């Protein structure tokens, strides 16, 4: 051996054409047989329309939540034991408080980067649920939930529900004045369930409110049980996505039986990893510059104290709004009370909303009798009824969300609180009925106008001899031909109306 001179080239030849990587891959393949599947996985094509990034925001803020959450759990103490605070924040010095509150203040002020991590965690939670909602809206309005992806829709709705629940649990853990009020309300909501409410409340809280069991219980739910389930569901969501391949918008070269986009490696990988860094970065920047949930100002929870302007985090807003505007209809009879003023807005109503979300794919399949496989997405305008239904629900939910800050609105605009409350009652009720026809009209108009939603189209308006105006859209470029604009063939659908003109002939007559 000693007489052979080792050079870089000779070493390279000895290890094969692809060097150390090739060698490791070879060894791996010998044992796991990954080469073939791995190759096709790296070649996997991901459509990269911008609207598909919304789900990625959710995914990566979940990652941020897990990472910052682990950091926080190292310093947070889930205990209702009463301690006296002697720390760096003087206005709390000498006050008695639960250990959970004291440890949250301590991790904010005494642990390096603790406050940053806490704020990042909270901002990431707000962004997580926000991007889930936006992602869900994208999936809904483009019909991505249709066969074969109903199961993934169901997983998504479950994830949203769990995220909201876990958000509330986490918001409760510091045991500060504002979140303690939230727990108090949650207790009363559970209490309002007919027949079993009191038992449920006593079992969950380990007795009457507040008790000492609730913080440790919420903690283990918040850091282990719920995120564990969510992690499993997120994984399933991704596996299904890979298995069923991503949907895509109709367009040049895109059909029901192919996927057009970038390969996983390296293009999509670079983009998505970069986006993950961006999401983390934006969360950290928010955590740096925008103060969130300053619990040291709120002080420890004490059931006899209360602050005005206490709102839950935004994703619980629709519930709080519903509770505010619902009239005081309580049922007393036969020796029993059913507090409908609580049960309906806080138990039955959210049940109906999420039930509707779960059931929507089945409902739509029943209405349209469309049982075909769909890999091409709808443009929202091409399904006016679905779009209008979604807009109606969103409008009502937004109004309920706004109703959760009636006092802030009244104060900001200097109007009577009572007036604001009554206006919100009216607005919540009429908003879906206003939103539906408007959205329907816009969608069907856009659908009827050829090339709607496309940039850089030119319309030539000409006047006929009878005095009728006719708009003809002209192609912007020589190669901008009509065939890729025509909606791809889809089965008979949720449509009631047919466009006034066949969409391909490019002429729309305005009736006079």
């Amino acid at each position: 051996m000693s007489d052979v001179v080792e050079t870089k080239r000779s070493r390279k030849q000895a290890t094969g054409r692809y060097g150390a990587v090739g060698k490791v891959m070879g060894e791996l393949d010998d044992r796991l047989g990954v080469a073939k599947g791995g190759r096709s996985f790296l070649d996997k094509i991901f459509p990269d329309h911008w609207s598909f990034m919304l789900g990625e925001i959710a995914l990566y803020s979940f990652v941020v939540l897990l990472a910052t959450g682990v950091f926080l759990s190292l310093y947070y103490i889930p205990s209702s034991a009463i301690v006296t605070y002697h720390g760096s924040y003087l206005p709390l010095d000498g006050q008695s408080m639960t250990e959970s509150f004291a440890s949250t203040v301590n991790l904010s002020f005494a642990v390096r980067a603790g406050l940053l991590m806490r704020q990042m965690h909270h901002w990431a939670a707000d962004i997580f649920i926000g991007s889930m909602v936006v992602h869900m809206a994208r999936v809904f309005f483009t019909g991505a939930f249709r066969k074969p992806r109903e199961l993934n829709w169901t997983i998504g709705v479950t994830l949203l529900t769990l995220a909201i629940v876990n958000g509330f649990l986490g918001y409760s853990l510091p045991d500060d004045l504002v979140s303690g009020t939230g727990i108090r309300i949650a207790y009363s909501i559970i209490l309002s369930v007919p027949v079993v409410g009191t038992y449920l409340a006593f079992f969950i809280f380990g007795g009457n409110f507040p008790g000492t069991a609730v913080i440790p219980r919420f903690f283990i739910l918040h850091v282990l049980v719920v995120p564990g389930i969510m992690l499993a569901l997120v994984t399933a969501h991704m596996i299904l996505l890979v298995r069923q391949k991503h949907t895509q918008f109709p367009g040049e070269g895109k059909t029901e039986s192919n996927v057009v986009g970038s390969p996983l490696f390296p293009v999509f990988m670079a983009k998505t990893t970069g986006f993950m860094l961006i999401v983390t970065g934006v969360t950290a920047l928010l955590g740096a510059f925008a103060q969130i949930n300053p619990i040291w100002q709120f002080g420890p929870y004490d059931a006899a104290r209360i602050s005005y302007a206490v709102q839950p985090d935004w994703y619980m807003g629709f519930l709080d709004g519903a509770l505010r505007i619902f009239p005081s209809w309580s049922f007393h009879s036969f020796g029993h009370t059913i507090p409908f003023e609580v049960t309906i807005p806080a138990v039955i109503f959210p049940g109906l909303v999420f039930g509707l979300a779960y059931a929507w794919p089945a409902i739509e399949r029943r209405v349209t009798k469309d049982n075909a496989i769909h890999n091409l997405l709808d443009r929202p305008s091409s399904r006016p009824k679905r779009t209008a239904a979604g807009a109606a629900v969103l409008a009502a939910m937004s109004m309920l969300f706004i109703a959760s800050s009636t006092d802030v609105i009244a104060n900001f605009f200097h109007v009577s609180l009572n007036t604001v409350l009554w206006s919100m009652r009216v607005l919540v009720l009429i908003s879906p009925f206003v939103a539906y026809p408007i959205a329907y009209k816009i969608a069907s108009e856009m659908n009827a106008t050829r090339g709607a939603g496309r940039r850089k189209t030119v319309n030539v308006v000409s006047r006929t001899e009878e005095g009728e105006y006719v708009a003809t859209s002209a192609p912007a470029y020589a190669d901008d031909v009509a065939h890729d604009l025509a909606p791809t063939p889809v089965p008979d659908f949720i449509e009631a109306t047919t466009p006034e003109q066949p969409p391909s002939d490019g002429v729309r007559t305005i009736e006079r």
Partner: protein
Amino acid sequence: MSDQHERRTPVSLTGLREDDPHLQPAARNPRLVERVIALTFLVGLALVVGFGAAYWVNATPWILGATMGGGLFFLGVGLVAWGKYLMARGPFVEERHPLASSDSDRNAFAAAIVERGGGTVKRRKVLGGLLGGGLGAFSIVALFPLLRSLGPLPKGTLFHTDWRAGSYAVDQTGRRIHVTDLAVGSIVTVFPEGTQNTDRGQAVDQTVLIRLSNENFTTQKGRESWGPMGYVAYSKLCTHLGCPVGLYEQQLQLLVCPCHQSMFNVNNGAIPEFGPAPRPLPQLPLYIDASGYIRSQSDYDQPVGPGFWERS
């Protein structure tokens, strides 16, 4: 960067020649883009190193966040730009293979379940039934101890507070309230003496004591003796969701719940006049003893706080 005019048909990734336009970078001027990305990475790197330094010297949170967030942000932007402008521009296409299996595979699968598995159970119906019964019984039986050990039964705890005949009204520091303590228009949160520092005292017994006038004050018929010397006491728990109704408006004579803005008329038995609360706040009958201290005649005449099934 990519030319709008120049559309390319998507191609499959395999078997492309190296000079295929699909494999070229999307940027028109890759050298320039490369420099910009390098600059972005440098800024990101500097900020990330700065984060380390900031952590080392224990800088204020916003510096920590700005360096860390900014660093990751710039690295991310650079990486995205790398992927978007300098890597193969595509578009590429891949076939979708139908997920459904062939009919024979489906049938074989169903047959395996129905004939092999189902047949086995059918032949041994008793065994299957017993096993199912056992597991079913366990899941039901397990539910009881699981739930039941979580907490005590409610029993009567929701129906009573700790106010008794003769309880002294004390504030949160435990000081007894004397008849001279409050001016007209004053409010104080009181507890039955001995409970002011307990969870239950604060969550259940909390009561607002308001002085409405200098003479006995009757808030409703039948409560003539409940408001001696203008001292009137109501449960501080909102009948809607149990928030403390600590918001007293002296001129409007309203108690307002800060959570959902129910408004209770203090002069008129705390009957809710606006908002979602369904019932008046229960009133605590008071008397003033010989030494001038405020005490309760008895417990509340009804359960305090939000509604529940067992409440009549």
